[in-house]
Every structure is written in structure tokens, then in C-alpha cells.
């Protein structure tokens, strides 16, 4: 599944960058986040996330790693792999921050999400819409926190 979008956030690029690349801060907006552990600051972290696909609820244990984290040009690539009972997920998320003015930043993002195993087999019809809903929720939260 591929998702992408653009958000405009009323804050300077540096402030947005600092928020979205800090797992502890951005984690406050991650729907269903149960735990977060920084393994290697600025590089690796682990997270546990609960997601419900209709009647199917799953807890994903995720390993995430920044593959690119370039504050200068506002580019970041996060690769995450996780597992849930009988299932696995692979995510590659890309983000690009562009300064539109001193207090406005454009966030272009895309994500490639592959769900495998049981969840793909029994909840695939739900996966697209659930992921879209969670993403929207995430960005709403993100904006309100940064703009606050």
C-alpha cells in the first residue's frame, strides 16, 4: 500500500524538524503507541503499537531505523519492520520539509506499507482505510502539537 500527502504547518522548519525526528515527541501522536525505546539516538528505536483492523486487533513490535536524517535539506527516510501474531509489516516512510516562510513549513511525505501474513489474509479489505484514518489522525495531532 502506498500513501502520500502534503501538510502545511504553521511553524519554522527547524521547529518542525526537531519535533518530527524526535521519536519521543512524535510518538505522542502515533496512534496506538504503547511503548517506545530509543536504542541508538538519532538512528534506531523500538516501538510497540496496537492497531485494530475492524474486528482484528494486533499489537506490532516494531524496529525502526533512520536511513537518512539530513537536517540541512530537511530530508528523512525511516525504515521500520515489525511483527504481530502470524504477521509482519515493512514500512518505508519518506519526509521532505520545505520552508515556505519563517513560520510556515511544507511537509511532503510518502509511505510504502506492506502488511504480510494473517493480517493481510483476513483484514486486507480494512487495511487501506484504517491506515488512511490513522495517518490523518497522526497529522492532525502533529500540527496541533507543533503549532501550540
Amino acid at each position, binding site marked *: 500500500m502506498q500513501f502520500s500527502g502534503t501538510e502545511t504547518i504553521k511553524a519554522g522548519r527547524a521547529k518542525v524538524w526537531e519535533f518530527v525526528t524526535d521519536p519521543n515527541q512524535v510518538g505522542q501522536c502515533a496512534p496506538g503507541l504503547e511503548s517506545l525505546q530509543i536504542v541508538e539516538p538519532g538512528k534506531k528505536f523500538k516501538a510497540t503499537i496496537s492497531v485494530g483492523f475492524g474486528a482484528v486487533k494486533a499489537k506490532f513490535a516494531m524496529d525502526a531505523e533512520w536511513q537518512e536524517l539530513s537536517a540541512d535539506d530537511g530530508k528523512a527516510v525511516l525504515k521500520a519492520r515489525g*511483527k504481530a*501474531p*502470524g*504477521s*509482519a509489516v*515493512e514500512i518505508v516512510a519518506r519526509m521532505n520539509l520545505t520552508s515556505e516562510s519563517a513560520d510556515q513549513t511544507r511537509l511532503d511525505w510518502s509511505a510504502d506499507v*506492506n*502488511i*504480510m*501474513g*494473517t493480517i*493481510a*489474509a*483476513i483484514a*486486507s*479489505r480494512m487495511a487501506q482505510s484504517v491506515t488512511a484514518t490513522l495517518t490523518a489522525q497522526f497529522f492532525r495531532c502533529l500540527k496541533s502539537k507543533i503549532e501550540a
Partner: protein
Amino acid sequence: MSTYFGKRIPRNEDPRLLTGQALFVDDVQLPDLAHVAFYRSPYAHARILSIDVSAALARPGVIGCYTAQDLGDYWSPGPLLVSPPPTIERKIFHQRTQVPLAKDKVRHVGEPVVMVVAESRYIAEDALDDIWVDFEPLGVVVDLEQALQTDAPLIHEDLPSNMGAQVIQEKGNYETAKAQAAVIIARRIVYDRGPSVAMENRGVVAQWDSRTQRLTVWDSTQAPVFIRGGLAAMLGLSESQVRVVAPFIGGGFGPKIMMFYPEEVLLPWLAIRLKRPVKWIEDRQENFYATTQERSQIHHCELALTQDGKILGLRDEFLHDGGAYMPYGLTVPLNSQANSLGGYIIPNYYSEFKAVFTNRTIVTPYRGAGRQHGTFVIERLLDHAARELGIDKAEIRRRNFIQPEQFPFNNEIIFQDFAPLMFDSGNYEPVLDKALEMIEYERFYREIQPQARAEGRKLGLGVVFYIEGTGIGPYEGARVQVEASGKVSVATGIGTQGQGHFTSFAQIVADQVGVRPQDVMMVTGDTDQFHWGAGTFASRGAVVAGNAIHAAAQDVRQKILHHAGEVLEAAPDALEIVAGQVRVQSDPTRSISLGKLAQRANPMRGAVEPGTVPGLESTNYFGPRYGATAFGAHAMIVEVDEATLQLKIHKYVVVHDCGKVINPLILDGQIHGGVAQGIGNAFYEQLHMDENGQLLNASFMDFLIPTALDVPHLEMAHTETPSPLNPLGVKGAGEAGAIPVGALFAQALEDALGLEINEIPISPQKLFELTATAEALA
């Protein structure tokens, strides 16, 4: 002399089955039984970097976790079940068979990676979630055509491409025939199938008895004798130390003859290692991945005909989806080749297939076993030709039928049993005529369809013809014995999965031995009782085991008459056996019961003539030179709802010929079941897979199978053209019902909607797309 053969009598086994008294694998309960669950790959194609089972082992109640490494020398790719026919010259075959547990990489979703054994299945399942496998994802191949592109990821990296096999079969010269043709019909045809969806999933229970040094395996297999021999060889045991029992099985349909499934290899090994009995029962979701299935073929085919609709030649080039491994050789695509000839005279023929490895579940035969695909090809091409040439669709078939006096008919290509594809006997036209009469063909086109159209209703009729190669070798055997009780016991090596063996075989014996079928005690699929034979597949049980049983029963009859002749002081041919009594025909008061005779044939004391063989018993075998070919026609009238594109079958007719019929009731049941699975294939069932090799509908929430409401009442008729290949004159019937249904649906829906259909399965959604496309083109 047939009191019972040919009679429509109820099944001996039904009271046990219907009251829940029959033993299925999951009914096997043993003291100290441990339970197995499998960690299966969620990835369709990935390298295994590491496996961590420490957390699973720490879970209370877990007895052990085993990976490929733990199997040591026992780890080995499975045997090749069916080699490609040595008799076919133009072939390539790369043998790649499944492994018990994935070692370096996984090649399809559901491939087992770790075996967990625990005190209960619940604990074992929970422990699966404790396992961490580090996978490195690889590119995934799910599409047949993409799989052969040069940049496709390689499923078996030691091969130059994903092509697993290639076979060319040819007779005459198609190109010459084509040059003379008045019309060439060329199409791209896609025929897809799915899982067999047996009511009972697979299961294995294994027990090692240290005191007797014997292994007992209860296995939902269609081939217990080969499982026994294979397990003995793999485990270094004598065959006499291994007993394999295939008890009652809730549907086989082909996938249960795949050998060896990883679970069949692993459970016996585990039972010996743990010195504890172990059980694994497949759940429904596992079944979608871990039990073999059939899937798609893509055909580029053309038919060359004269102006009056005579076939000059057929050319067919197709791709066959083999899945991640091809342990069953080329049986399925070879059947497709055979069935693409239909029951027609096709003097020039060129067929070439490539079997392709994909990151999908293994493909092995499932009821029909590629015959559907081939039948669809020839029946579709004939329909298109009939339209193009302005010939009636029944008539074009009639003009091309092999004629009764041409049998045995040599098709000059090689069949799945390595022998030339010979049709033993047939009389095709009466079958087609009967179907046309029963469906009221002329009246439909004269009155019914025009009237429906005038009312704005979409009504269509289909009528198709098919052949079914059945009853192939090599052989089966049986032992028949009259016991001291006067009842008869019969053992044969094949297993039973609902075919009514306990009745049809009993009928054969009852006629010879002079008892009632209820007095015949059948044992099937227990290697301690009979340990020769190949198994239940290819519609061969009644033909091959049936004739072996017949031969043994005839021997026993001779022994009975011989012994009774001595007792009654009469010549054997002056005797008759009636209701368990042997009596002198001319004086029925001079008689002796079978029980007494059996006792006399097995003296406890005294002396016998040297060379005397005890008992009223015989073991005998039967193997045909080649398979017997059944045939038939299906016809239906269907109405399509224009708004929903759902359909209603108004009438469904089957006219079928499988030679001599042992029990018409059982035969009807076989046809019913086959048609139901055929309807599922034609209009309901399809495996949906994403580009990552993930099955998106691996549950009955999303995978549609027809219900009782979707399967119409069938009107059936039979003709009987005996097979000359066996004394009973029988042919198989197990797959007939399922074979032509896709071709029938395509033709009937075309007739109703006025569009062209070259694929199966079809569905309301697919009909909508085709209608939209047709309208856009119009």
C-alpha cells in the same frame, strides 16, 4: 450373476458417519499426547538471516522448538512423486521439491520455518508469537508472465530462470493444416482454480511405542502405503515397524495425496525423538497456504477448421503455475494437454507448455487436475468457431466426434501415466443427444429464449462435452477372506475419503461370495492390513482396486466351490452360493454354510495334504495397461439478473458415461459433488493475491464457496459403454462432475449476455467489467 452390482443401494458406511462414530485423524486421542504448531513464513520470498526461539522455549508448557538446523541429516528435500514421463522426448524438467522446514530462504507465504511442540495446542500457538525470525525480503514473483521475464527475481537461484519445466507434444503438422484451413480461431485464454476446500483439513498423529519398537501414524493421506514405505526409509526403520492408518477422511480431492507434506515428515520424527505421541491438525487459514492447490494457466491457442467446421488442427502454447516447488512433476499440465483434444478427431496438434515457479503455494492435482483447463480451451475454441462459421454449437461438436468404431482411439500423445493417450471405448453422440433432449435444446432457441428476450430477460443455454481419463495404473491389490462367522473381510491398500468404498466394493464381493453387502467388512488405508498399492487418485479406486477386489473374490469363490464340492460330494459347477449357503443347484437341501466351510478350510488339528493353503482367502492384484476414458455432456439454462449480474440456474443436466455402474446412488453423489466444486470454480472461488505474494482472502469471510442455494438440482442420465480394459467394464467417475463446468458457464453466459468470455472464474464483478468493455467497443 449380479445380485448387487449395479444396484442403487444405500451406503454401508453412512450410519457410522452420520452418527459421529467414524474415526477421523483428530479423533485420535492418546495418553500423554503433545501438540504441534508451525511458525509459517509471513513473507512470500525472503532470506532467513537468523531465528531466535529462546523466548518460545522459556514459555511454560513448551516442550521444544525445532528449526531446519535441528533436523540434522533428517533434513532433506521431499521425493519427486511423479517423474516426467520418460516416454516424452521433448522435455526439460528441473526437479525442485519442498523441504520439511525452510533453511536459508522461504519461497511462499505459509512455508513452515519452526516446529513448536507443547503440552497443548493453545500453548504451542502462543509460543509461535514468541519466535523472532529475521527475514531479508526478496523480490516477489506472483504473475506467470512476469516470472519468465529476464529481470524476474529467481525463486531457485541455482536455475537460470523461473521455468521449472517445458514439454512439447506434437502429432501431424499443425502449420501445414493451418495453411489449408478456411478459418483460424485464435484466443488468449486464462483458466484459474483454487484450493479444494475439503471439509476436513489435514492432520497427522504419530506414536512411537518403545516396547514394540513400532511407529504408528494416523494421517489424512490418500496414499497410506507410500507414506509407510517412505517413512520407514527416511527414519531407518523396517517397513514392518511402521503402520500408517488413513482413517475416514473428510474429502481428499487430490491435495491429500501430495507426498510428503512437511508435517508428515516431521511428526513421526518428533514422536520417536520425544518418545511421546504428537498431534498436528491443520487449521483453516493454514490450509489456504500449506495444503496444495491448483491455479492458473494462460493459453495462447488456435484452432484451424474447414468451412464446414471440421477441425484440421489445434495449436496451444501455455504457461502453467507450479508454485514454489514442483514435487508432483507434470501431471496437471499433461492432463491439460490431453483434455485439450476433447473427444474430437484432431489430426494435427502442437502443444507446448512451460511450468513456472512462482512465490505461491505448491500446485498439485485437485479434482480434475488440469483437465478443466484443457477442456475449457477446446470447448471455447469450438464455440467461437461455430459462431464464426454459422454452425450450430451442438452440430460442430457432432461433426468432430471420434466415432464408435474408431475405438480404441490413439491420440498419439503421452498421458500422465506415461502411456500413449488411448481412449479405450466410447459412444459420444448419444450422450450429446440425450443432453440436448433433456435441456430441450430446440424448444429453448425456438420459444424460450426469444420469449425471454421479448420480456427483457437475459437467458442463455450452454452445452459442452468432455472426456475424463480415469483408472490409471500402476496397480492395486486386495485380500478377501471368508471368516468362520460366515462374514467376509476385505482389505485394500487405498484410503477412503467419502467415495463409498465400503459399499461399492462390498457389492462386488457380495456377488462373488454369495453374501449381502452388509456382511462384507471393508478395511481401507491401514498398512497393517494391506500394504501394497498406490493410492486413491485419478478416479482410479473403483477401476483398479475394484477389479483387484473382484479378482480376489473370484478366487475365493472358486475355493468355496471346491471345498463345498468335497463336503457335498458334488461337482463345483453343480453348486450355487445363496445367502451365505453353498448348495447343490438341483437339490438345495444339500448345503453347507460359508462359516462352516471357512472353519473346515482352516483345521486346528490333524493332517492336511502337503501344499494345502488354509482358509477361504485370496490376495490378488489388478493393473490396467492404460487408463479408461469416461465422457459426458453437461447442459444448463441460466438467467442473468441485469442489475446485479447475479445468476440463477434454471436447469442443469448431466449425461455421463463411466462404463458399467457399480452403484448408481454413489455415482450420482460423485457427480453432484463434482458439479458443486465446478460451480465454485466457475463463478465463486478465486484466490486474490497482492504483488507481495500475500493472499488477501485466506478465510471463509472473503473466499466464497457455493452454498446449497447456489447448487441447482441436477437432472442426470447415464449411458453405459463398458471399458474393455478390465473385467468389470468400469471407468472412474470421481472428477467428471467438476471438469466441464467452467466451459459450460462461459458458453451459457455468453449466450445470455452476447459477449465473449475467455476466462474462468467469472463473477458478477467480472461480468460487469466485460459488459462495460463490450459496450465501450460497440
